[in-house]
């Protein structure tokens, strides 16, 4: 084995210093229009409206969606969820993960390119940048020129709008955790005897500004760096691709050899493919890659280069789709195979899990009941001619209203309910009600007899729960 250092170095190899911390180069994207831009916009508008308006919607006198952390309850549309429902959230997240797998196997990283908040907000910010500073070439020029009033005005407008959107985003997000009307009105302090009074908790204001800052930094400055260096999904989605996954690809066979030509020229005569080497696909790319080099881990499948290339193809009167959503198989054989076990496996798993989740939520009882035998000195009590047992009934009212409950007893003995004092149990309260069950000594046959306790809400017989316990009596001689 020879040591590399022992080998004579060629004169071309000079010692130089390499910076190990790479300064990020700013990406200037060109504005482009086309089918995928419209798709993103029209799919994005309802999602964005949903995000912005949901906290303002009121159902049953409470926000339609409120994750009330300090009171340990989640209001989601018509149902209130409690900490014990947390398993449902776990289910939901697992289902969401499997949906992501399904979509990724079918059409690649479209989540990243079309619906991921990081991309959506980045593209909104780029749109504003474009609006304030002009398109790609103008922006490059503006950044190079020295500071003058126009540059200051344009930059101020851009950052101002960015911050405004960031604040709306931050406030809306915190609005899912604190009723948004309270939150916003709390930003305006009132004065009381010379003292400034803030009505919104300091924590809520802190988080609002933190999310504002994060939105501004993420969508304005970090952008694709988040996808490249921070996002875990970006890395593992790649391994889900197979030969029939549709993702943005450059049709090398059709495009090469690339080269400039006049629209009137016949490319075949010049020995050229369809790619005119205009570099628009590179200029529009938000992650700064050249799709013609093949698929790369940075690619978020956003389709911007597809739209850019199609617009050039239209101008050249060439067929569209030199860059398109296509699969490896399709490029090789002209056909994508959709009927593959992996895809159907994921689909079936998602459907089954969704079914189970919907069934569970639909059958979820807003009444939790636990029956405990009283932990007193004796397991039964002799009261005249009767034997008595005491039970503690822990009632957890998970409904959105106050209820009083009726208790019914059932079993083999003539049980009588004594000492039950109905209490109004408010929403979310856990209260333990003691009851006394009495049986005449003469009726008792066994030391232990099953007792069924049914709890029914007075104003809604549908809210009911049944628990089984035992009635203990002295040994029969």
């Amino acid at each position, binding site marked *: 084995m020879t040591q590399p250092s022992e080998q004579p170095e060629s004169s071309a*190899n000079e010692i130089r210093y390499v910076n*190990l911390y790479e300064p990020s180069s700013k990406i200037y994207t060109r504005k482009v229009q086309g089918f995928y831009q419209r798709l993103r916009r029209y799919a994005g508008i309802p999602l964005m409206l949903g995000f912005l308006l949901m906290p303002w919607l009121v159902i049953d006198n409470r926000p339609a969606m409120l994750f009330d952390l300090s009171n340990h309850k989640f209001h989601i549309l018509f149902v209130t969820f409690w900490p014990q429902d947390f398993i449902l959230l776990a289910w939901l997240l697992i289902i969401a993960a499997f949906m992501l797998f399904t979509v990724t196997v079918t059409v690649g990283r479209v989540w990243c390119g079309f619906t991921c908040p990081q991309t959506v907000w980045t593209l909104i910010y780029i749109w504003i940048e474009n609006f304030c500073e002009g398109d790609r070439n103008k922006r490059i020029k503006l950044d190079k020129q020295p500071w003058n009033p126009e540059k200051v005005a344009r930059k101020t407008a851009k950052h101002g709008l960015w911050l405004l959107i960031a604040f709306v985003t931050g406030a809306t997000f915190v609005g899912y955790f604190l009723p948004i009307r309270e939150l916003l009105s709390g930003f305006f302090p009132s004065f009381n005897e010379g003292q400034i009074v803030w009505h919104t908790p300091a924590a809520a204001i802190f988080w609002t500004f933190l999310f504002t800052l994060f939105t501004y930094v993420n969508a304005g400055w970090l952008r694709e*760096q988040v996808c490249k260096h921070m996002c875990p999904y970006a890395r593992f989605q790649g391994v889900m691709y197979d030969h029939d996954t549709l993702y943005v690809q450059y049709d090398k066979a059709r495009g090469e050899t690339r080269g400039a030509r006049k629209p009137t020229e016949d490319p075949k005569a010049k020995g050229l493919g369809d790619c005119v080497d205009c570099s628009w696909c590179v200029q529009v790319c938000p992650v700064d890659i050249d799709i013609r080099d093949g698929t790369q881990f940075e690619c978020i499948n956003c389709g911007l280069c597809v739209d850019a290339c199609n617009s050039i193809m239209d101008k050249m009167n060439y067929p569209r789709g030199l860059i398109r959503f296509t699969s490896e198989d399709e490029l090789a054989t002209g056909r994508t195979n959709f009927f593959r076990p992996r895809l159907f496996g994921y689909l079936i798993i998602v459907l089954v899990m969704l079914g189970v989740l919907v069934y569970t939520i639909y059958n979820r009882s807003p009444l939790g009941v636990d029956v405990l035998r*009283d932990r*007193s000195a004796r397991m039964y009590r002799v009261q005249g001619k009767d034997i008595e047992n005491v039970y503690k009934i822990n009632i957890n009212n998970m409904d959105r209203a106050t209820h009083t409950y009726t208790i019914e007893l059932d079993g083999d003995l003539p049980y009588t309910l004594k000492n039950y004092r109905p209490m109004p149990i408010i929403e979310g309260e856990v209260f333990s009600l003691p009851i*006394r069950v009495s049986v005449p000594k003469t009726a008792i046959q066994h030391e232990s007899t099953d007792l069924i306790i049914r709890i029914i809400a007075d104003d809604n017989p549908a809210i009911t729960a049944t628990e089984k316990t035992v009635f203990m009596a002295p040994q029969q001689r």
Partner: protein
Amino acid sequence: MTTFWSLWITVLTLTCIALCAWILWANRKIEKHGDANEEVKTTGHVYDGIEEYNNPLPKWWFYLFLVTIVFGLIYLVLYPGLGSWKGLLNWTSVNELKVDQEKARADYVNSYDVYSKMSIEELSKNDEAMKIGFRLFANNCAVCHGSDAGGNYGFPNLTDDDWLHGGTVENIVATITHGRYANMPPWGEVIGDKGVANVTEYVLSLSGLEHDAAKAVEGKVVFDTTCSACHGMDAKGSIAFGAPNLTDDIWLYEGDRETISKTVRYGRVNRMPAQKELLRDDKIHLLSAYIYSLSR
């Protein structure tokens, strides 16, 4: 903490931070041989045909490291961390607990204040107050009296409006605040086996239970001369002595022949502990209202 350990920790912490900063700084540039235009090389790691590029770290990442170092240093100045250094903010977990406790105390006083101003009769009809009362009862009283306040062997039932020490509002408050003590002396030696048997039959007859009528007549004589001192000539008991009413078929201990004769022979000592020191006045007020409400 001794000076040595304090110094040890301080030096160790600061040296580690300095080392981190040095590594970060020293690695920002490396010497490299070769053509400046060559492509980025891979690290040589290959797995399943996947290779790893040897790309430089983004610069903002480097700045993030710097931020954490600065944050760490500021933290160490403000908070305890460097040996025995207390930190400029003088923060301790004990102080934090104290603040929380004071807040909880204030909340508690505020919420009980409303109820302390209400009368016990009023409170006994207030559902909210009675829920708190129930919880107080469950924490402090249910151990002996049962969750339903129905009593236990030797511990009176509080739901039947039969009272050993009186059932008025004042009586109940006094019972909880100062506790109660009642003593039935053993009579076995004084009235003899026969006397015990006869008195037992008489006591059974008072509540209309199955008894030997002849013995009960003899028992009445003994009762009138001895037991009536506390239980009264009519055997209806006495609040002053805490002597139970023997005519209502309500029993502190069970109402069978065996138990009654044991009580007569050996006597009973019973004590309810005073709660004054354990519960505050406002809690006793609420608890009294709950107990008052049980037999209404």
